[in-house]
């Protein structure tokens, strides 16, 4: 009989660089299970990192079942490697006691953010009540509408509306912000006409009553 699965946590602050690796290597021997759900909290892990973690586990004959994180990049990296992922909102992650979490609680948290895999094409409309994370582009002619934040792991070339029910703190983030139109709460802005610098994520939010676009905070 195999042991039941357990979760382990990595609780390193980002300032400590790759310390999580040490912690993982130390803890890995004491894991008494043949499969594992990994919670990486806010850590930003690249595909390479996750591949490495996976290989560490494999060496101990432990199967990496899923990865849970508050960091969208880690989620993207993990899902790119075909690992099941759970993205959590930061506030919720802090509030929720990992040890006592049951599957159903986790399902709930997962459902607060809507995940869309793939590009939204012209004529497609995606509307959700909470946050939305899109892994793909939002093409011209497509519309994404969210009660909370809109996060796009790709290019925003169509229309995005964050905070549709009046949340003026909602933000729109994308790897490339070149929308036809942006809406946050009840504010509307036309997209910028000049092309943004490639390679920097950008974020749109309301400041002093108008929508502004800035390089996204890196956290």
């Amino acid at each position, binding site marked *: 009989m195999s042991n039941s699965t357990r979760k382990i946590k990595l609780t390193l602050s980002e300032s400590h660089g790759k310390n999580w690796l040490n912690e993982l290597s130390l803890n890995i021997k004491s894991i008494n299970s043949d499969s594992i759900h990994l919670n990486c909290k806010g850590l930003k892990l690249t595909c390479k990192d996750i591949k490495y973690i996976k290989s560490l586990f494999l060496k101990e004959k432990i199967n990496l079942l899923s990865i849970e994180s508050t960091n969208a990049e880690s989620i993207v990296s993990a899902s790119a490697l075909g690992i099941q992922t759970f993205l959590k909102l930061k506030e919720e992650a802090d509030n929720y006691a990992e040890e006592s979490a049951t599957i159903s609680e986790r399902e709930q948290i997962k459902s607060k953010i809507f995940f869309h895999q793939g590009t939204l*094409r*012209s004529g497609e409309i995606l509307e959700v009540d909470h946050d939305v994370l899109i892994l793909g*582009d939002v093409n*011209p002619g497509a519309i994404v509408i969210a009660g909370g934040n809109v996060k796009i792991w790709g290019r925003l070339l169509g229309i995005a509306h964050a905070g549709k029910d009046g949340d003026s703190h909602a933000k729109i983030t994308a790897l490339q912000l070149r929308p036809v139109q942006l809406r946050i709460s009840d504010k509307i802005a036309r997209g910028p006409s000049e092309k943004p610098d490639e390679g920097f994520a950008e974020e749109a939010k309301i400041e002093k009553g108008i929508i502004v676009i800035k390089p996204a905070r890196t956290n």
Partner: protein
Amino acid sequence: MKSVTSDTRVILICSGKGGVGKTTLTANLGISLASKGSPTAVLDADFGLRNLDLLLGLENRIVYTAQEVLEEKCRLDQALVKHKQEPNLSLLPAGNPRMLEWLKPEDMKRIVEMLSNEFEYVLIDCPAGVEDGFKNAVAASKEAIIVTNPEISAVRDADRVIGLLNSNGVKPIQLVLNRVRPKMMESQEMLSIEDVTDILALPLLGLVLEDEQVIVSTNRGEPLTLIGSQSPAARCYSNIASRLQGEEIPLIDPSKEGSGLRDKLRRLMQTKIF
């Protein structure tokens, strides 16, 4: 009914926007595939504005149509019009426009199943738009070729259609960019190939150059590929057919097809492949 397990390639040729060159591509590709040895059927699914028969010069030889086949008033082989000069190619003509009122996706599937028993390729000339005619045609197709022009509105409509094809499980979907003018692309008066593939994110099956001969041949009812024309578009169509059959023929970037003296010299020295 027997279950269909044939490897017939049923390819929908569609665009969303009208007038971008679907019917012209269907006719030329049909002739080209047939002349390369593949028994091919072209099916006119544009019941509203049928004109595939015209382009193939077969209008006067139509006796029965898909309609009579479905109503079991004739057999499939009676309705199929075999091309005289290219007997590997047959056309199944569209019925009258009123067919649109009762035709169901199942009907379209039935027709395509019948054709699949006889042919290696079934090309479906799709109507413009995304309404019933389009939906019927999609239901019967396995894969698709999206035809578009380097124009924003055509690309936008193509994108919409790709979304619909994706949600209907049609794949692979490949792209043909029609009416390419190297000079206008070079001077950035026209969307570039990258502009188009960047948005649509599809593999490029081929480019077709803007070519007056297309219009001439349309009026004669003789597709360019039938008369062995060496005009630019004819070679493009033939290359697309070869790529469909799995041959690897490289694409050339028309931005390198400038009109300067050096370009002209270089062009003399290399054969262009589109």
